[in-house]
């Protein structure tokens, strides 16, 4: 993750670079972020945090994060992306009941009387959910008192403009400028 910080307080610049990196690592978002640009102006106060993701968050089906095969009258699932294991298990329980799901290991489960096509098309994570998590983690890395926020989203670029009391038009303009510089579109 490449982080650039522009700010007026040298101590704050370095501290927030470390904070942003630590918080993104803690929340498991560091791998999804390619580049981040932080504008810190505490005296205004104006904070612009812009991130460019490696890929646009899209909905994930069970087939995207696991390999599936028919096994007798059921389906055997081998999970390839561990992050989605709880969602897959939850989806199978709700679709076929707990008695039909036999979880042999953390990554393997057999579902009795299941239909391969129905299982493979089941959506277990929406792109919106992933985006929400990224925005949440950006909010968490901002100072606590900066509660008035506006979010720009274009494809893989997410920019959060935040201030303490009144969101002035010039703040929005500045946020849009950073958003465009990160690869977002100007018509947000």
């Amino acid at each position, binding site marked *: 993750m490449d982080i650039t910080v522009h700010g007026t*307080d*040298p*101590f*704050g610049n370095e*501290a927030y670079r470390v904070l942003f990196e630590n918080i993104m690592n*803690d929340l498991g978002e560091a791998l999804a972020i390619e580049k981040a640009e932080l504008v810190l102006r505490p005296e205004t106060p104006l904070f612009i945090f812009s991130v460019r993701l490696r890929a646009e968050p899209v909905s994930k089906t069970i087939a995207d994060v696991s390999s599936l095969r028919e096994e007798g009258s059921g389906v055997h699932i081998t999970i390839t992306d561990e992050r989605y294991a709880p969602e897959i298990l939850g989806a199978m329980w709700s679709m076929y009941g707990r008695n039909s799901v036999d979880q042999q290991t953390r990554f393997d489960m057999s579902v009795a009387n299941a239909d391969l096509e129905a299982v493979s098309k089941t959506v277990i994570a929406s792109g919106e959910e992933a985006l929400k998590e990224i925005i949440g983690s950006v909010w*968490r890395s901002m100072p*606590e*008192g900066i509660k008035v926020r506006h979010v720009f989203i274009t494809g893989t670029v997410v920019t959060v403009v935040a201030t*303490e009391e009144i969101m002035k038009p010039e703040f929005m303009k500045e946020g849009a400028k950073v958003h465009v510089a990160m690869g977002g579109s100007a018509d947000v």
Partner: protein
Amino acid sequence: MFEVIMYDGGVYRSAELFELIEDVGGAVLQKIRSSQMLTVTMSIPSEDKESVVALCKDIGGEVKEVPLAGTEIAVVGPTLGRHHMPHPICDIAEALRRKGALSIVMGLARGRGKGTSQISGSEVAIINEYDAAIFCFGNFKSCVEAKAELMKDIKIPLILVCGPRPEGLEDYCEGIVPGVGRKSERMRSPEERDKLDEIVSMTETVLKDKRKRMSEDPLFVHPSEVKQVLENYPPIDMCLRPSPIVLHLDGLRAKIPYDENIKAVSDIMIYDRRLGDIAKITESKLDRSSMLIKIKTGSEVDYDDARKSAGKA
């Protein structure tokens, strides 16, 4: 003169230690037992320190210096939110506890923000109950300087811990420790441990000054002597709260309900005087189930006596 030390060891032969403390005229300030391990903070006469230390070593324990023993310190953050807790506030509270202080962590209800942060009268009153307070602010100089308003009504010794060194705040606090700020993980690197040591040593210095000022007009009776007497008072003896009596530099906090016990506590006799006459007993602002006992100084007691004999009181 009394010295405060801490025994850290097992419970094996600890009865001998308690007996020796009693024999030399000392007092147990705090006793924490966890399974077979025991920590005892004690106040003993300097001339008997050697024999007590020798016994502690003989029974397999370790003796530690606890310069902050007998004090209760508040570590205050702008809020209790995850932006400020648990780090670095809890790390500082832990460092103070390791030096014998009883530390508490507190978050203000509306302390966040640069222009919108506030402190209420009741928060100020609660903080003023402690021996000292440590305020932890963030990473931006302008923000730290703007938040100085939060400290202006605090009457107890105050230390400011923040990121960059602010300007013009020397009148608001007794000491400033810069280089900490907001943190998202535990302070465990050597530089961060050094910072914690710096905070502890500044707290020691500030409290030493307070003790020195107090020694100009000493308390009528030492708080540990009141503690020894209060320990035999049944509601305190039966109190299940941790540390039912907490020592302060100028008195103590008893964790028993004020309304139910004020009369009985005021009537407890110490050196042939009612406790109510030699101390100001008030309800704690923190919660209704504790009381604060502020011991009067020798001159205050003499003044009260003079007024009484003149028939004015």
